């Protein structure tokens, strides 16, 4: 009897879990259907339901961006494409549709070219996921310890020598994996993108008296650099900086 009870409980648990997943999948399929029938606002509400239920995927954001594009909602369209880009930056369909959506924006901002080496280095770090760097550092540390123990406890001089060299190498590799992981984390923390949701002026100071530097329009992507009260300091892709009211932007992270 005992085992049967346990079986039923675990079955119930599995069911509820898969039910939640299935619900998300149902919404996704319903939304896709609505999109295909041209009912874009219905599609938007179905996709949003998935996100409100605490689930996400590249495709949900991408499809949501498409739906908003069809509804001519520039800011929301770009916002969701950028959300998708956070998951998979190099998706070919995303790049095409994002360029369509960017065409609807008013602001023309030139990309500032970063210096070559640091860009390549940062891109390399970001191309590997943070968890990978994390596990690398742990595994390499374990390797170091075991090699060092071999070095300490083995009698043969040959093996001792080899173990010592290997242990030093894996120790250094573990340290650099840790360094890259923390660099990855700080790069991600520094990357605080946001999308302009209402046309706004960018001021030189975080108050109403500040001189107006320039104007930004919906759909433009900015990087948040700093914050003071309900003002956020933002940086454009071309390096210009200024302060704007927090409620005119929506953060991507």
């Amino acid at each position, binding site marked *: 009897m005992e085992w049967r009870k346990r079986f039923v409980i675990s079955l119930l648990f599995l069911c509820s879990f898969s039910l939640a*997943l299935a619900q*998300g*999948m149902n919404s*996704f399929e319903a939304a*896709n259907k609505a*999109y*295909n029938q041209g009912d874009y606002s219905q599609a938007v509400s179905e996709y949003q339901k*998935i*996100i409100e239920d*605490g*689930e*996400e*995927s*590249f*495709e*949900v954001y*991408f*499809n949501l961006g*498409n*739906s908003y*594009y069809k509804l*001519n909602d*520039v800011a929301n369209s770009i916002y969701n494409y950028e959300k998708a880009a956070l998951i998979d930056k190099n998706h070919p*369909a995303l*790049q*095409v*549709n994002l*360029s*369509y959506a*960017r*065409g*609807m*924006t*008013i*602001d*023309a901002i030139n990309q500032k070219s970063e210096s070559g080496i640091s860009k390549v280095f940062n891109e390399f770090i970001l191309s590997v996921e*943070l*968890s990978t*760097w*994390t596990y690398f*550092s*742990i595994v390499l*540390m*374990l390797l*170091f*310890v075991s090699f*060092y*123990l071999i070095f*300490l*406890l083995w009698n043969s001089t040959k093996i001792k020598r080899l173990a010592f060299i290997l242990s030093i190498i894996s120790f250094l590799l*573990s340290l650099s994996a*840790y360094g890259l*992981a*923390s660099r*990855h*984390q700080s790069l991600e923390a520094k990357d605080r993108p946001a999308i302009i949701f209402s*046309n706004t002026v960018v001021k030189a100071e975080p108050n109403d008296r500040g001189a107006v530097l320039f104007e930004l*329009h*919906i759909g433009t992507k900015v990087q948040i650099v700093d914050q003071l009260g309900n003002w956020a300091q933002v940086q454009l892709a071309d390096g210009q900086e200024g302060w704007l009211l927090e409620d005119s932007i929506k953060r991507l992270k």
Partner: protein
Amino acid sequence: MKTMKFYHLLVLFGLLISLQGFAQETVEFTVNLSKSKLGINERIRVDFSMNRDGDQFTPPDFKGFRVVMGPSQSTSSSWINGVRSFKRTFSYTIAPIQKGTFTISQASVVIDGKTYKTQSKEVIVTDAVKKPSDQLTAYDIAEEKLHLVAEVSKNSPYLNEPITVVYKLYVGGNINVSNFRPLENPTYENFWSSEIPINKYSFSSGTFKGEPYNVVDLKRVVLYPQLTGELVLEPLSLEITADVPTNRRDFFGGVIYSSTNKVVTAGKRTINVKSLPEEGKPANFSGAVGDYNFFVEASKKILNAGESLQLKVSVKGSGNLKLFQIPEVKVPASIERYDPEFSEAIKTTLGGMQGEVSNSYTLVPGYKGKYPIPSISFSYFNPTTKRYHSIDSEEVLLQILEGPELGQEDQPNQVQKLEVVADDQFKFIELQTNLRPIEKKNFFGTISYYLSWLLPLLLIPLAIIYGKNQQKRRGDVEGNRSRRANQLAKKYLSAAKKAIADKEEFYVALERALHHFLKAKLKIETSELNKDKIAEILLDRGIENDDIKELIQLLEHCDMARYSPISAGEIQTDYQQSIATITKLDKKI
């Protein structure tokens, strides 16, 4: 005497007429004064007139006056369409003797046997006037009877609210205005002004200070104040050429006019301009005051890249149309926008400016896609409702059907670009997905990460401590020796120990063990060698003589014991001896 004779003649004539027995109209006998108020140095004329011939005319006594001239009598009669009219007038010119109020009392006449009387009239005699009326020049009359008045529609308008100024010339007393010439034209500083031209000057009748005058509009101006506060309107000065009738008559009895020039000035006025209220002022307010409509229209909405379209931003209505900025239109960066062409169709009337101003932009989209042109907002202040109004234009959606792809412009190779066009339509949604929970927790940086990363390092000090322990053990000589001896004994003498009860087998095992030991240590087969050879090899290895002797003795003992009786105690001693020897040798080799 002469007059009397004339009088009789007239009476005779009158009798003749009355004999005709013509219509008996009502008798009127009235008095008429040339003015009722005069200076003491002036004169006044009193006329008594009757419309029927009468007898026994008795003038009043003119108390307080002296008769300067008169009575003079004039009679006129006429027949018009068979109707006879008759008028006889007795005129006196009198001058006052002193100041005060006097009464010219009744005069009487007898007509057809009835006595008629005039009403008595009051005359006020004041101080001497400078110029007695009978000496007035044409200029004096012109000054008295020509007035220029500026009528301002509003004394406290809002900034940019239109006001009108109409300059009116009042002309009285049969004066003819033949010409006018502006001497000083106001420049209307701090106002935007527009003069409304007058094509034809036409007189109309009006009153000025209660007296009837002829009025003509000479100049009409619409003003839009451009500054707040008290603004001064400069006066308008005109030199007017006027023909003033004189008392003289020409040969034909016509009035002789005398011409004179007169300068009239009017319209020095202070206008208090109110500033627009700050309350509810929209951020994008650009100074438009009036009542407007606002439109943004595109000439076409569906086109191909490279074609051009016109986007017209227009403001229609009434107000200060020329005096504000039309809001600028913002277009997506990928659409080329040229500077706007400004056009206006404005009519200025007394009510202000009316019509339309517009900016027409030429747009050339460069890439295909959808381009919404966001709505723009236009704000204005309506002075009649005293409120701000905002109009948002409708969003215009441009659809570019054919053209290159946005984001492809960086590709230098034109051919390649054409190839990818077909592929770069707007992509359809993705149909497969793997949902995952949004909340992600980073393992990196947590305590458990640091524990699992650094904890293995603890193994190293542990290992070192373990190694130290080993060292210590090695340092303990006595214990070491016995342990080592035990180890060696275990290794080589285990067989011997097992056979410790059987004398013969014990010594065979012991000998084998010793040879095994030597074999392991010296790496030579010693069982084939005799004892001298073994001693020699051991000596070569630097083993002391005593130790060698002990080993040789042991080996000899083994040989001997096989054939001679030996007690159990001896076996035990030999066993111990062999352990000590092996341990000693092991250390030295």
